């Protein structure tokens, strides 16, 4: 097969995928930037060009947008400080050939195989004010005075949803990092042990640098996941009570499909897109390190 044939084969094999990707992903995306410049109810072709008005309203005249943004950031920060250390910890423990590691790995990954809607419904029952396990548990251990309405309480609602999201996604990050750790050749650990390194030292000086690239991936994925959070919130609280759990995407959905502001919602979508892109690039740059080859 000469070079030319190879090229032809590549084009033939790639074309259908590229075409589908282009028509159903790239094209709508480009179109979104255009739609964001209109006032459009989304029920007919009646559109009115308003320039950057949608963006101006979003940034200067819409307190709910900033509220949503702060909730997403809260999601990101809490998830970051819990998921990254926890998943690193569990991944290292599971990698160290403890008995039943496969079973634990299965347990951690389990939430990930349940549909997000089922997870949301399940946790709504856990938080349920009258027959939820959480309140029953609190009462059982004598902390009954802390029993409350959880998802209906302005103070706790967001944290409750975040906790569910962490429970749901932790397993994914553990498995991701576990794969990274498992691929580190054991002789690095043997060498560091010979040099007298304890398990903490070998974690810091062998494991961490060698899974850094995977960790970077995990952080970027975390950013995308938390800024894009939708299903869980929508099923558990629909953004309530009083916007306390409203996120960028639940707000986008509400604007588009409930309030028939498709233009405005699309502008919000463009902002979320730019936000995620920016945050991911920033994270990638902040975590830049010399890659260790092995």
């Amino acid at each position, binding site marked *: 097969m000469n070079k030319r044939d190879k090229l032809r084969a590549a084009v033939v094999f790639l074309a259908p995928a590229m075409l589908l990707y282009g028509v159903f992903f790239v094209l709508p995306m480009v179109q979104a930037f255009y*739609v964001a410049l209109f006032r459009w109810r989304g029920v007919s072709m009646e559109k009115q060009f308003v320039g950057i008005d949608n963006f101006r309203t979003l940034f200067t005249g819409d307190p709910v947008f900033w509220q949503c943004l702060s909730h997403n950031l809260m999601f990101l920060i809490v998830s970051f400080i819990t998921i990254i250390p926890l998943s690193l910890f569990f991944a290292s423990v599971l990698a160290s050939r403890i008995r039943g590691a496969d079973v634990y790995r299965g347990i951690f990954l389990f939430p990930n195989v349940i549909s997000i809607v089922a997870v949301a419904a399940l946790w709504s029952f856990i938080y349920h*004010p009258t027959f939820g396990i959480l309140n029953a548990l609190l009462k059982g251990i004598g902390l009954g005075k802390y029993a409350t309405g959880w998802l*209906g309480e302005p103070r706790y609602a967001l944290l409750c949803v975040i906790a569910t999201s962490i429970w749901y996604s932790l397993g994914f990050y553990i498995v991701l990092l576990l794969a990274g750790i498992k691929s580190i050749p054991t002789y690095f650990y043997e060498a560091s042990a010979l040099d007298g390194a304890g398990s903490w030292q070998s974690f810091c000086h062998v494991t961490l640098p060698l899974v850094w690239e995977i960790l970077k991936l995990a952080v970027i994925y975390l950013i995308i996941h938390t800024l894009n959070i939708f299903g869980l919130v929508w099923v558990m609280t*629909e953004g309530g*009570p*009083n916007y306390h759990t409203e996120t960028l995407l639940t707000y986008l959905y509400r604007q588009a499909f409930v309030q028939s502001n498709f233009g405005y*919602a699309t502008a919000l*979508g463009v902002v979320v897109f730019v936000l995620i892109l920016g945050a991911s690039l920033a994270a990638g740059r902040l975590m830049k390190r010399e890659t260790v080859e092995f």
Partner: protein
Amino acid sequence: MLAAICFVVLMGCGHNKPSASTTGKIEIEVAVFQGGYGLDFFEKAAREYEKLHPNVRIRVWGNPRIWEQLRTRFVAGDVPDLCWPGWGMDTWALVYDGKVMEMDKYLNQKAYDQDIKWKDTFIPDLLEKGKYRGRYYILPFNNNVFGWWYNVNLFEKHGWKPPKTYEELLKLCEQIKKTGIAPITYQGKYPAYMIRGFLIPWVISAGGLEAFEAAQKLKPGAWKSPAFLKATRMIAELRDKGYFQKGAMGMDHTGAQMEFILGRAAMIPCGTWLRSEMQKQIPPGFKMAYFNPPVLSNGKGDPSITQASAETWIVPKEAKHPDIGADFFRFMTSLKMAKRFVVEKQTLMSIKGSDQVKLPPDLVLPARYLRSAKATWDAEFSDWYKAMNKEIEAAIAALLAGEISPEECCERMERAAAQTRNDPSIPKH
């Protein structure tokens, strides 16, 4: 998400079906929201209509999220000839964009089986709701009455009586609370229930129907008028005295209704769909009954005023056979068919006299309240001004959660109303 929206738009294109079938008959398409009532009634009606009009074939289809398909069809301009777009469709947006047929010429025709005009067969308040700038667009079909329900078994056991006045309600709640049962629960995740069940009835009681109408018409200051202040204070009083079920704020509609059915709460605001919605969960022997929300004993509003709303249908402007679509709807709202719908589907209808059948026990009282009401109301603002409605829902949720005072709640609602009032891009009613 961004991609999804545009995907939806793209999907709308290239959807075109021939409207005449091969047999030479005129085929019309009827798209129906498939909720608790199913499709069978409409299919049977279609077969009967076809017998009367042999040249017409009616294709009835539906699903529980029909608005998602209809939205793209409307954008593409390829629409059914008659539809019940369901609760998820912003039907007024369709009217504003000129996508809904004016129904006046059809409404002035003779009714299907009575010697009066078609439009005179409807309960007038329900028909008027669909009017915009002097013309009829949105037509009512089945009709819901919204008020409070009490657990008859519990009330009989303890010798309680459903309260007629707010003052009686306070006394009763104190008694109920002592038994460890929550006096009132509500569907906290969806504040529309609290607005229809607590806020508006008490606004009307305190300030008369005109206080509420002024608010719906966005008159400056109406949302923080003394009537609204009084109503929000009444809600705050029940909240502070602990008469609402703890945690109700975090429950969805079926969750709160479950609490009511299980007897953990004695009363709940809900519409006449309550039994059909909870049919599978209701234990044998459970009895409940409807009553109008208790009003102030010295209130300005007439105590007989009742809330009535309707499920609505439209004939799309770009329909291929709008005349047949409208005529089929005229057939389905004939007195005979309306009565049959009431009996088969256990709901009320917006056709006068359709309740003159053997009503299911839960509907007897709502029908009686409706018939003896001096006036009816509906939270129409929630359909007209969606953004304002969301703000008002948030304000009521904040009030019930104890985050804000009645005064702050009214201020916030008034601000939302002012924003809608001053936005020229929002068509006004």
